[in-house]
C-alpha cells in the first residue's frame, strides 16, 4: 500500500487552500485527489464576478479566483494531483481508496483532509409535489449547462428559492434571452447576498414573490406550469391565494447540503474542523455551507496548518 503524509480529497477552493497551507507549513508529501479533469471545482462554472473582494481585495470571476490557487498548487512540486479520481472509501485507519481510469488505489496517510464540497437540495427535499417531467434543474446544473456546455435549458423560467446561485442564474437566463417569470421564496426575505438581490434581480426587473411557495408542478413530458400559493410567516398556506405561472423550466435554488457521505459511511463523526478520528480533518463546504469563497479559503488555510502540525507532532 502506498503511504503518504497528507491526502486531501477534493481540488476545489477548500482543498487547494488546505494543500497550499499544509505545504507552506512544512508538509512535503501531499496527494490531492480530484474527481474532475481540472482543479477549481464549482468555481469554474461561476463566470460571474464578486469573488476575491475580501481575500484579494480585487473583484474576480470564479475561474480567475480558482486560477490564483491552481498556479500556486502547480508551483509546489511536492503536491501531486491525481485527476479523474473518485474516492469510494474512507476508513478510520486513515486509508483512502479511489478509482481512476485504469486502476483502483488505496493510500495510507498520516493525515487526511476531506474537502468534498456540497450538493444542492432537490425538489424532493423541500417536498414539492406534482408530476416529474423534464425541465426541472438544480440551479448549479443549469449553470453548468449554460456556462460550460453552451446549452440553454429553457426559455420560460421559474426560480424556486432565492439562494445566491438561483439569483445569479436568474440573471444569466435573462442575459441568454430567456424569460424569468418569477422567483418564488417561501421566506419573507431573500436568502441570498444583498448585492445579488440588487445586481441580479432588481437591475433586471425580475419579479420576486416572497412568502410564496410552489404548491404543485404540472406537465407530462416537459414542465408546463406551476401553481403558487402565498404563505404566512409560519409557512401556513393562505386559502384563496393560489395562482398559476406558465413555464417550461424550474430552477431549484433552495439550499446546499454538505457532502459528507464518505465520512458518514466510515462511522466517523465531524467535530468542528476535526473528526472523531485524530488526523482526519474537514474543511470548506463539506464542513459547513459558506456564503462566500473568500472565507472558505481563509478557514481552509487554518485546517491545512492544523493537519501540518498534526503530522509534525506524530
Amino acid at each position: 500500500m502506498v503511504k503518504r503524509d497528507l491526502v486531501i480529497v477534493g481540488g476545489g477552493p477548500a482543498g487547494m487552500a488546505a494543500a497550499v497551507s499544509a505545504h507552506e507549513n512544512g508538509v512535503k508529501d501531499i496527494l490531492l485527489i480530484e474527481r474532475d479533469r481540472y482543479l477549481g471545482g464549482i468555481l469554474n462554472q461561476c463566470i460571474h464576478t464578486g469573488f476575491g473582494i475580501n481575500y484579494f481585495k480585487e473583484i474576480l470571476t470564479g475561474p480567475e479566483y480558482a486560477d490564483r490557487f491552481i498556479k500556486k498548487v502547480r508551483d509546489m512540486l511536492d503536491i501531486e494531483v491525481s485527476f479523474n479520481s473518485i474516492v469510494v472509501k474512507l476508513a478510520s485507519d486513515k486509508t483512502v481508496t479511489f478509482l481512476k481510469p485504469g486502476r483502483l488505489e488505496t493510500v495510507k496517510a498520516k493525515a487526511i483532509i476531506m474537502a468534498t464540497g456540497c450538493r444542492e437540495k432537490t425538489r424532493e427535499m423541500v417536498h414539492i409535489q406534482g408530476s416529474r417531467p423534464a425541465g426541472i434543474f438544480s440551479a448549479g446544473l443549469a449553470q453548468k449547462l449554460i456556462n460550460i456546455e453552451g446549452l440553454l435549458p429553457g426559455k420560460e423560467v421559474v426560480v424556486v428559492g432565492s439562494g445566491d446561485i438561483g439569483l445569479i442564474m436568474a440573471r444569466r437566463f435573462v442575459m441568454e434571452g430567456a424569460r424569468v417569470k418569477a422567483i418564488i421564496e417561501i421566506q419573507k426575505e431573500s436568502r441570498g447576498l444583498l448585492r445579488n438581490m440588487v445586481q441580479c434581480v432588481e437591475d433586471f426587473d425580475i419579479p420576486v414573490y416572497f412568502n410564496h411557495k410552489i404548491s404543485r408542478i404540472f406537465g407530462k413530458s416537459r414542465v408546463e406550469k406551476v401553481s403558487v400559493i402565498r404563505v404566512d410567516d409560519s409557512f401556513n398556506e393562505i386559502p384563496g391565494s393560489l395562482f398559476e405561472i406558465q413555464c417550461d423550466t424550474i430552477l431549484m435554488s433552495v439550499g446546499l447540503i454538505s457532502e459528507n457521505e464518505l465520512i458518514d459511511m466510515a462511522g466517523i463523526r465531524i467535530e468542528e474542523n476535526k473528526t472523531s478520528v485524530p488526523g482526519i480533518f474537514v474543511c470548506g463546504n463539506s464542513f459547513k455551507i459558506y456564503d462566500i469563497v473568500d472565507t472558505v479559503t481563509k478557514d481552509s488555510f487554518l485546517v491545512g496548518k492544523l493537519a501540518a502540525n498534526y503530522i509534525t507532532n506524530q
Partner: protein
Amino acid sequence: MKTYDVAIIGAGVTGTSIARELARYKLDIALFEKEEELAFGVSKSNSGIIHPGIQNSPDSLKGRLCVQGNFLIRDLSKELNIDFKEVGELIVAFNEEEIRELLRLKKEAEVLGVPRLKIVDKTWLRQNEPNLNAEAVAALYAPTAGIISPYRLVYGLAENAVRNGVEIFTETKIENIIYSKPNFEILASKGLFRSRHVINSAGLFADEISKMLGIDYFKIRPRKGEEFILDKKKESLIHHLILPLPSKTSKGVIIIKTADGNPMIGPTAEDIEDKEDLSTSDSGFNKVLSSARRLIPSINDKDIIAYFAGLRPVAGDDFIINHENKAPGFINVAGIQSPGLTASPAIALLVANILKDNGLEIKKKFIFHAHRKGTIHLFQSPLLKIEKIIKKDPSYGDIVCRCEMVSAKEIKDAVKKGAKTMDGVKFRTRAQAGRCHGSFCATRIMKILAEERKILVTSVTKRGKGSEIVKEDRFCFQE
C-alpha cells in the same frame, strides 16, 4: 406482408416474459411497445419484490401463479444473469389479535404451497431486525421472499428474447386491431402488421386494446402508489422485507430492501381516473412516512432522496388471463398488478399453454440460447472485484455518477444495449438515481447519449419525444 405467429402488445415485465418464453419455439414473434423504451409503463415503478405467495386467496390465479413464479424466478434469474436475493419477509403483528390474523394468513398460504413459513417471536425479531419497532410482538416469517431489479429483469428478458429471434418495435402504438379470420390485422403508428395470434399485455391500456375487438367485459382502473427511496448509506436499515398486516386493497406500506441497495418505502394505494397521472401529493407523502415509521421508527425524512408515483392496472380482484372465443387467437393478459412481477414467469408458461390448447402448433427450436451474459455494475461489486474489472478495462475507472458509482463504460454499454433516454440510462445503470438527482452527472450522460447514438445533444430526452432536456445549443448560432 409478413404474418407473425404471435404479436404481443406491451413490453413490460408481462410482455417481455411471454416473449422470452415463446422464443423457445419455432415462432415468428413481434413485441410492440408504445413508449420509447421498454419497462416505461407500469413496470417502471415496480418495487422489485418477489413475493412468497402469502396474502392471496388460494383459489385465485394470483395465488397459484405467485407461488409458481417465486419458484421459477430462481432458475430464470440465473439463466439471465440477473441478481436475485432471497432476503425473506416479515409480516409484523403488534397485538394478540394481529397474531391470530398472522396464523390465518399462514394457514391460507400453506394451502397454496408457500414453504417454510413460521411465526417468530419478539426475541427473534430483536436479534434479526434491530431497527424494527420494539412494540412488535411477533411476525410471520416467509424466507422465500426475495428482491430483484424490475428493470434489469425486463431488459434481461427482452435482450434474451431478441437473441432468440423476437422482433421488438418501440414507439409503436397500436391504433386498431381487426380480426379477419384467421389473422389479426394490427394497425400501428409505425404501419400495418399481421399476426395469427395477439397477446394483450398492455398494462393500464389493456381494456382499450381489448375493446378494439369488441371484448369489453373488464375495465382497467389505475391504482396509484407513491413510493420513496432512501439514501444508499441506509442500506442496512433492514435485513428483510418488512410488511404490516395487509388491508383489503393493498399490502400496505412496506419497508423494502432493493437490489440496488437503497431501501424503498411505500406504496400507497389510491384509486384514480387518469391513466397518466403520476403526480405525488402531500397526503401520500405523510401517509407513507407515518406508516413506515410505525414499522421502523428511526426512518428520518432527511434520508429520503427521491419519491415518485406508479400506477397499478387493476381489473377486479384477480388477474385476467383468458383466450377470447369471440376472436379466436386473442388472449387477454390483463389486470396484472401485484404480485405480477413475481408471477410473470408463471404467467408466461400459462399463456404458452393457452396458445397450445387453442391450436397453435409449437415445436421447440433446435437451438435456444437460454443464457445471457450479465451486465457489470460497479455498485454491486466488492472493491477487490472492482480492481480487477478496472484493470481489464480502464474505462470502468472513469466514474460519471459519483453518488451511485457508475462508470462511463457502464453507461456506454447501456446505450449499446438499447437505452435511448436519460431515464433509460438511469433504469439500467442507476446513474442519476442517487442523492444529487443527476445534478453533477446529467451533462456528461447527455453527451455520452448524443455521441453513442449519433444525435444532437438537444435531441436527448428524459423519456421520449417532448421531454428534451435542453431547448437550444448556443454554439449552433452562426449568423
